[in-house]
């Protein structure tokens, strides 16, 4: 076991635990946001840099602080380590910088994006970003690409978290999906327009933190906050059959994996469950899903409106010109989200 102190809260965690997971064990506001790490995907994390923290003491053995912020998702705790996250203003400033970089070329047209309402980037910007943008240049754009008949890729929205690449690598066989080109023109691609034809390919939709990979059978059927998530299962020979059904009225509009508090699925589900079982009769209903993160799904629909109002007030104060929010900054405006 190793003793680690994060923002003044001390915990004992198993050896080899990352700082991020140690923070998740403690829970609460001191948990760093994570856009690319995904517990179920090996070698994930390290890319987006949103989870950076300041290590102010390396360990009891070697108490030197680490000179630069480190990615908490890829740094393991050492016995006696001390970490600052929300208690370090410099770190929060650095993170705001990372959020700005992630949003730099992001279209910020959340009102017309299918992911709005359940987008990790939207939530991240909402919690850690600054109002307004300092970027004065045209944003990069890509054409939409169909990856098979069920999944659509819109690179314009991609944050290159590599999660879908790891899914293709690790849970589907014969990877045909990866990254081509370099730098800010990198593209997620099914090399030479191959389609992903695999029973588990639909999971790329669930791991995508933004609206870059979406379910074509669901696209634009409804805003997510008008749908009602319900946990259900069926006997499936390929996967656990434990899913989340998204209802509008009596209709199942889509099927996804069950995501936890950090937006990670509990189980991968197969394409048959995801795309072909859209009748209530296919499923045994367990009951309404608990949605508990600061996403607009909960804010608008399920949980206290009081919290939402407080957040709106906070955002208004942060804006440079009183409370007028322009449409272009949709990501920052809860009314548009």
């Amino acid at each position, binding site marked *: 076991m190793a003793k680690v102190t994060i923002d003044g809260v001390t915990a004992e965690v198993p050896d080899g635990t990352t700082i991020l997971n140690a923070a998740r064990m403690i829970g609460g506001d001191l948990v760093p946001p994570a856009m690319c790490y995904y517990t179920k995907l090996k070698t994930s994390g390290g890319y*987006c840099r949103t989870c950076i923290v300041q290590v102010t003491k390396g360990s009891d053995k070697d108490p030197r602080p680490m000179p630069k912020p480190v990615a908490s998702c890829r740094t393991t705790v050492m016995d006696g380590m001390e970490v600052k996250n929300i208690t370090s203003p410099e770190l929060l400033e650095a993170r705001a*910088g990372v959020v700005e*970089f992630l949003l730099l070329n992001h279209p910020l047209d959340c009102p017309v994006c299918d992911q709005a309402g359940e987008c990790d980037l939207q939530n991240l910007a909402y919690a850690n970003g600054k109002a307004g943008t300092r970027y*004065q240049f045209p944003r990069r754009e890509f054409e939409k690409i169909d990856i098979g008949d069920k999944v659509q890729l819109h690179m314009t929205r991609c944050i290159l978290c590599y999660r879908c690449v790891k899914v293709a690598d690790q849970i589907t066989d014969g990877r045909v999906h990866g990254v081509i080109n370099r*730098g800010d023109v990198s593209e997620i691609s099914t090399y030479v327009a191959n389609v992903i034809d695999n029973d588990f390919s639909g999971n790329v939709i669930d791991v995508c933190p933004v609206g870059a990979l979406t379910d074509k059978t669901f696209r634009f059927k409804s805003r997510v906050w008008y749908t009602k998530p319900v946990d259900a299962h069926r006997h499936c020979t390929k996967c656990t059959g434990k899913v989340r059904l998204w209802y509008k009225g009596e209709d199942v509009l889509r099927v996804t994996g069950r995501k936890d508090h950090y937006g990670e699925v509990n189980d991968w589900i197969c394409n048959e469950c995801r795309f072909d079982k859209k009748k209530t009769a296919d499923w045994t209903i367990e009951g309404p899903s608990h949605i508990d993160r600061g996403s607009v799904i909960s804010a608008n629909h399920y949980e206290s409106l009081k919290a939402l109002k407080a957040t709106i007030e906070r955002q208004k104060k942060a804006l440079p010109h009183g409370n007028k929010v322009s449409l272009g900054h949709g990501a920052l405006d809860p009314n548009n989200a």
Partner: protein
Amino acid sequence: MAKKLLLEYDHVPGISTLDVYRRHGGYASLNKALKDLTPAQVLEEVKTSGLRGRGGAGFPTGMKWGFLARPEGVPRYLVCNADESEPGTFKDRYLMERIPHLLIEGMVLSSYALGANTSYIYIRGEYYYVARILERAIAEAYEAGLLGKNIFNSGFDHDCYVHVGAGAYICGEETALLESLEGKRGNPRIKPPFPAVAGLYGCPTVVNNVETIAAVVPIVRDGGAAYAGIGVGKSTGTKLISASGHINRPGVYEIELGVPVEEFIFSDLYCGGMRNGKKLKAVVAGGSSVPVLPADLILKTAAGEPRLMTYESLADGGFASGTMLGSGGFIVMDEDTSIVKNLWNFTRFYHHESCGQCSPCREGTGWMEKILHKILDGHGTLADVDLLWDIQSKIEGKTICPLGDAAAWPVASAIRHFRKEFEEYVTRPASIRDVKHYYRLHSMAEA
């Protein structure tokens, strides 16, 4: 005349052939090591020599070799970094082109010390013709029994391969290089694990620069102590400097570490002074990644001491008033040079070469380039200069690999030391309507 250890025979006709190389003492070090020294003794000589990595970071080579994990039954690899893509650096090319056997002898020698039976030379794609030279030399070495099985009847076997990259700067970063060598996309790995523990194909690996490996040859020949006797303090031995820019004698020079910067620029032994009698304005002393320094600070430290060509002296004063020796890419700029244009050119390079894995470098490098372009286009504002400063500060230290830092440092140092020039550009845009440069800027941006 300064002592030369690497380029002593670079002008001897035919030195690229095995025959001539051997007639000038070639492969004597290897012979000596395999006959008289144990691998541990070779390692000890390298430690004694104080040799530091010539690829840029200046990490002590003996220490790096000492870190190499040696689990039973697992192969170990030596990989030579011949990717040399940093603007301003061209010394490895010169060495390989002229004296390919020096590198190959160093490869076998170093591999012997490390217990590696296989080594790779990863060379950048644009050096295709140099790869051919190396391959010819390797074939000669095999034929003479200097590579392959049972070299010099010592029982030591070694195979050396040349691998030609596809011309990406990022593949010079050691872990990206290993990925590329394995046939994958050249993305830097997230460390730890370090290559010394899990490198090529997951096996313990040492990655060293061409010049570092070549330096092992004279170290074994003369002994580590003799090598350490050259230079100043912890900057021992000789170093190849790629000198370019507005000087009379651009080229590759082997210097004894410790030569005063002023002598290096103005002596006829080296750069031969400023071209056309112009005044010195600024120097980028260690390849495009290191901070640029104005004339007064490159010739003397902030404390007024003469600056020397050593790791320590060039770094004196930290980033506030110092720089780095880096890979030894010494770029000299005269009074007519526009720092802003030069910076835009560097920034454009880093933007183009970012692998795109991590957000600050992927997005920030392009943003900085666009702002610099805007300033050069006559549309900049004072706020843009502050914004540039803020962006570089948000890239530095927050990325996976040091390319992010390499993109940030030139911006920071240019603004730190030449802020007035930026201000001139944004307050008097007419001052940059120099037709020739303006045209060039646009044609380059389109290319």
